[in-house]
C-alpha cells in the first residue's frame, strides 16, 4: 500500500436543519485514506456513512471541518470548480446504479467523457476499454431495461472508471443485488483496487462485503468508533 495520503478529513461536522430541529449527523470526524487503499465504511443506519461519502464526493458541504482530496481543499472550491473537480477526480457508484434509461450502456459510460474535449474515436476507445474491464463489451448497445441488476451495476462501475479518477466512492454498491451478482460486483471492485490500483471507499451494511476491503472504518451516531484491518 502506498503511503501517499489521498483523502484527509479533519474536524468534519455536518448538521442538517429540519424545520426547527438540528440533526448533527457527523461530529468531528478525523480520517486519512492512502492512495491504493480499499476502505469499507460500516455502521448502523443513520450513523453518517453516506453523508461522509457524499462529503468526500463533493456533492454535499460540511458544516465545519476540512476535507482535502488529492491536494484540493474542497471547502474552498466554488460550485462550478467543484463540479469540474468531481468530474476529474471522483468516480461514484450508487446503490441503485442510476443509469440514464434513455441511453444505451455505451452512451451511459460515455456520458462523463462528453464533458471533455476528447475526439469521438478516443471516447469510443475509452468506453470500450471500461466496458471490457467490467465484462460487458458485448452489451454496449443494450439499454438499462435490457440488462440485469448486476449488469446495470457493472455498467455504472464502467461509467465511474472511464475518466480514470483517483478515487472511487461506492454507496452500498451491492445493496440492491442478489448474492451472486453482489459477489461479482465485489470481485470487480477488488480487481479495480488490486490490478488497477484504484483507491476505493465503500459504504456497506454487509460484513461479507466489508471483509473484501483492506480497512474497515466504523461509524456510530456520527462518530468514528474504530478503524481496523479488514
Amino acid at each position, binding site marked *: 500500500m502506498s503511503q501517499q495520503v489521498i483523502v484527509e478529513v479533519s474536524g468534519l461536522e455536518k448538521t442538517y436543519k429540519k424545520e426547527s430541529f438540528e440533526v448533527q449527523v457527523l461530529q468531528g470526524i478525523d480520517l486519512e485514506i492512502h492512495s491504493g487503499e480499499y476502505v469499507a465504511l460500516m455502521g448502523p443506519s443513520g450513523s453518517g456513512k453516506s453523508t461522509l461519502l457524499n462529503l468526500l464526493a463533493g456533492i454535499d458541504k460540511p458544516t465545519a471541518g476540512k476535507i482535502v482530496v488529492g491536494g484540493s481543499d474542497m471547502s474552498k472550491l466554488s460550485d462550478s470548480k467543484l463540479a469540474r473537480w468531481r468530474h476529474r477526480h471522483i468516480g*461514484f457508484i450508487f446503490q441503485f446504479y442510476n443509469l440514464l434509461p434513455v*441511453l444505451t450502456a455505451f452512451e451511459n459510460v460515455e456520458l462523463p467523457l462528453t*464533458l471533455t474535449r476528447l475526439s469521438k474515436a478516443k471516447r469510443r476507445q475509452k468506453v470500450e476499454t471500461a466496458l471490457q474491464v467490467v465484462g460487458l463489451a458485448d452489451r454496449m448497445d443494450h439499454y438499462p431495461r435490457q440488462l440485469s441488476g448486476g449488469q446495470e451495476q457493472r455498467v455504472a462501475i464502467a461509467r465511474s472508471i472511464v475518466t480514470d479518477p483517483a478515487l472511487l466512492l461506492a454507496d452500498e454498491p451491492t445493496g440492491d443485488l442478489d448474492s451472486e451478482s453482489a459477489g461479482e460486483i465485489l470481485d470487480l471492485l477488488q480487481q479495480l483496487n488490486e490490478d488497477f490500483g484504484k483507491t476505493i471507499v465503500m459504504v456497506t451494511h454487509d460484513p461479507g462485503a466489508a471483509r473484501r476491503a483492506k480497512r474497515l472504518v466504523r461509524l456510530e451516531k456520527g462518530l468514528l468508533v474504530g478503524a481496523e484491518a479488514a
Partner: protein
Amino acid sequence: MLKLIWRNLLRNKTRTFLTLASVGLALFILTFLGAVLDAMESAQGSSDSRVVVRHAVSLTFQLPEAYEKRLKTVDHVEGVTILNWFGGTYKDQRPENFFPRFGAEPETLFDVFPEYRVGEEQQRAFEADRSGFIAGKSLAEKQGWELGDVITIKGDIYPLDLELTLRGIFEQPDALAQEKQIFFHRRYVEEAMSNPGIVGTYWLKLDSPEHVPAVVKTVEAMYESSAAPVRAETEEAFALSFLEMMGNIRLLFSSIGLAIVISILFITANTMAMAARDRVREVAVLRTLGFQRGQVTTLVLAESLLVGVLGAVIGAAGASGLIGFAAKAAEGFFPALSAMQPTPGMLGLSLFIGLSIGFVSGVFPAWSAARIDIVEGLRKVA
C-alpha cells in the same frame, strides 16, 4: 448532449405528442387567422389615387345623386363613378353562388377603374344594354357563363328581381378577388324603384395620389352642413372600414390568437415542469458526474425549445396546407379569401411564437433543475 435532449424528448411519447399537438394546433390557428386577415385586407386591390365618398354616418345611409355633378368640379378629380351594393341572391343561398353585385355607371366605370380590362366591343355592348352586366373572368369561368347568357338575381335589400344579360367579361389579374364580382346598370334599379335618386358610394379618380388629402378635405367640407354629410377616404381606408363593420376583426383575431397562445403556454409550461420533476434524480446524477449548472439548464431548456419549434413547424406546415385548400374552397362564397396564402412573415412569426412558448415554458424548470440539491435529488425515488 444533443442525443440526450432528443432521447429525453422521446422518452414519454404520449406526453410529447400531446404537447406538440397543442403547440402545433395553437400556431396552426394563429397562422391561419393571420392569413385570413391579410387576405381580407389586401384583396381590395386598392389604388392610391382613388377616393371613396360615402355618408358620414354609415354605409347603410345613402347620398343624393345630385352630389355627382359637384364632385366632378373639385380640383384634381379626373373622374367620378357610382357603385351601389345590390346584394340579392343568385340561384340559391349556397356559398358557391355568392358574389358581390354592384349597380354601376357603365359610362364612367372604366374611367375610374382603368385596371379592369375589357374588350372595347364588349364595353360598348354593356353600355348599350340597360339590362346588361359584366362579370369578372374568374367568376364567369366558375359559373360557366358565356356572353349572351341571362341570369336572375333575386332582390333582398331591394324588392325587385333583376334579369341580366352578360355583355362583357373583364380581367383584373393583379387582384383576382376583384374578378369575382359583377357590375350592372344602376339605372335599371333606379327606374324599377321609381328613380329615388340615391347613391351608395361615389368613387373619385384623382390626377395624383399626392392630392388625396386636399381632395378629402375639400369634399368633406363641401357637405359638412348638408342633410347628408359625407366621409371621404382612400380606397384602402374604405376597405378596412368596411371590414370593421363586422367589428374590429384584427383586434378580434389577435385576441383569439393571444388567448390560444397563453393557454398553450400554460399547458406546455406544466408539461415541462412535470418532465423536469420526473428527472430530478437523473439531474442529480448528472451533477454528480460533473455536469455544471449551466449544462443542466441547457439540457432542460433545449428540450423545451425543441418542443416549441417542432410545434411551430407542425402548426405552420399544417396551416400552409389548409390555407391553399381553403383559398380554393373560398372562391365561391368569400372571394376575398381566395387570395389567401402563407407569407414568409407569417411563418416567421409562428416560429418566433413557438420559440417563445418553448423558452417561457422551459426557463423556470431549467432554472429549478440546475439548482437542485444533489443529495436530495439522489434520494428521489425514480
